[in-house]
């Protein structure tokens, strides 16, 4: 018999290394001779899209097209340490460092521009769409490209902006655990409707919804991509993935028997991006890499309970585990 049930899984997640450990990200922004800006940062692109969203942040501050950002994050020889690409910390921590580095460079660009434009001071000068101009008299202007050439001639290149960001966390008391171990906190809620086949123990997800707090979305489409991916991984955690660990040996250590979801196993996910800017985040943004998968398993488990009235206290909920639980429930 097939039985339907609905379940919620809601979670929170504290960003970063935490507990007072110095969580430092560094970044460098460099004006190149062609007017493009190179961002040097030790933040690894693992597929999550950090290269893109951090380029967006840099382009925003420098007010130049995204294509004019050269993002360098591959080689310890030419990038500062920006900490690990983990703990959902890159958007917040390294994003802040990049923003600071670019703001520093922007200030330096404007300072140099007023000299080139032979103005009294940099007051009233702004940088927009790749141009530095006087707001009260826009004809007083110089493009970033022209400025770079001038600086090159004067041997004043490279022009470098630097930024360093350290997250604020407080070590907890050893006896009471009191303190401020992480910041910021990110919230995630999943809701699913499942259909449980009580004869085979198979579980089908027939509807899935996710609301993800992001602070402020830097790139909404890529956040959606993270949500979809987190959902699939959470689904695997809920009902498929099992190493078959016995006496320290993994029975399931290849893709034939360590089952991750296929395209046919992952239903469409309805996604809500919830924006509530975090004042200390770059443009209000928070990291979401981990939060996006946290609520899936509890939502599935609560939905199973709603469907069949049995609490499954162990993941993954494989068909045999579910059938056993149903049988035990009937016995009691």
């Amino acid at each position: 018999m097939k039985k339907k049930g609905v379940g919620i899984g809601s979670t929170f997640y504290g960003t970063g290394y935490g507990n007072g450990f110095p969580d430092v990200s560094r970044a460098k922004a460099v004006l190149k001779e062609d007017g493009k800006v190179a961002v040097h940062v030790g933040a690894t692109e693992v597929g999550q899209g950090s290269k893109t969203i951090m380029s967006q942040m840099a382009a925003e501050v420098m007010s130049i097209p995204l294509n004019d950002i050269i993002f360098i994050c591959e080689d310890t020889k030419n990038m500062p340490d920006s900490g690990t690409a983990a703990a959902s910390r890159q958007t917040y921590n390294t994003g802040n460092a990049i923003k600071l580095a670019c703001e520093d460079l922007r200030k330096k660009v404007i300072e140099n521009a007023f000299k080139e434009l032979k103005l009294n001071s940099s007051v009233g000068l702004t940088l927009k769409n790749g141009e530095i101009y006087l707001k009260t008299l826009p004809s007083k202007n110089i493009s970033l490209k022209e400025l770079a050439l001038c600086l090159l001639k004067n041997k004043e290149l490279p022009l470098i902006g630097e930024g360093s960001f350290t997250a604020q966390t407080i070590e907890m008391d050893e006896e009471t655990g009191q303190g401020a171990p992480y910041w910021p906190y990110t919230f995630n809620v999943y809701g699913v409707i499942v259909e449980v086949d009580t004869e085979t123990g198979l579980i089908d997800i027939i509807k899935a919804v996710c609301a993800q707090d992001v602070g402020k979305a830097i790139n909404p489409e890529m956040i959606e991509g993270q949500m979809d991916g987190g959902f699939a991984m959470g689904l695997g955690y809920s009902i498929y993935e099992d190493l078959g660990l016995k006496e320290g040996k993994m029975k399931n250590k290849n893709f034939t028997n360590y089952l991750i979801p296929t395209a046919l196993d992952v239903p469409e996910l309805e996604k809500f991006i919830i924006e509530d800017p975090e004042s200390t985040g770059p443009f209000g943004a928070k990291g979401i890499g981990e939060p996006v998968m946290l609520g899936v398993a509890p939502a599935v488990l609560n939905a199973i309970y709603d469907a069949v009235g049995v609490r499954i206290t162990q993941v993954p909920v494989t068909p045999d585990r579910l059938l056993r639980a149903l049988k035990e429930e009937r016995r009691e």
Partner: protein
Amino acid sequence: MKDINLKINGKSYRLSTNEDMRLIDVLRDELGLLGSKEGCGEGECGACTILMEGRTVNACMVMAFQTDEKEIITIEGLSNGEQLHPIQQAFIEIGAVQCGFCTPGMILSAKAILDKDTNPTREMIRQGISGNLCRCTGYAKIVDAIELAGKLLRNGGNNCEA
């Protein structure tokens, strides 16, 4: 050694291969066609998916000598220089790429789907890529991208705004 003749991406090759080589070894190690990835070596993940005689197969599940006289298309054969194939264009446009390791195989499975029908249902698309594992995207945007690619192909053009 075993001599084989095969056509890859429209180009004819005559190769001398070891008996125990697989197609994936020939593509990657002998010909430097590195777009096909090896993710599992047992036909489960689909990262090495290529088209052989118009059908998708896992290049890790074909012995090199079996490809004698066969026509093969790899990811390198899809684009025309820097000119992207509509499927590639759609993958970028929709944001269907994350870590990118499954992407070449996924795109070839997409091609097999669209070669058959440029207006597939989402279910048909999911069926068609069910042999390509992806750990990053949850597949949703890949399905979207293949839908868009179908639309681009139906319109006969490469314009994503179409």
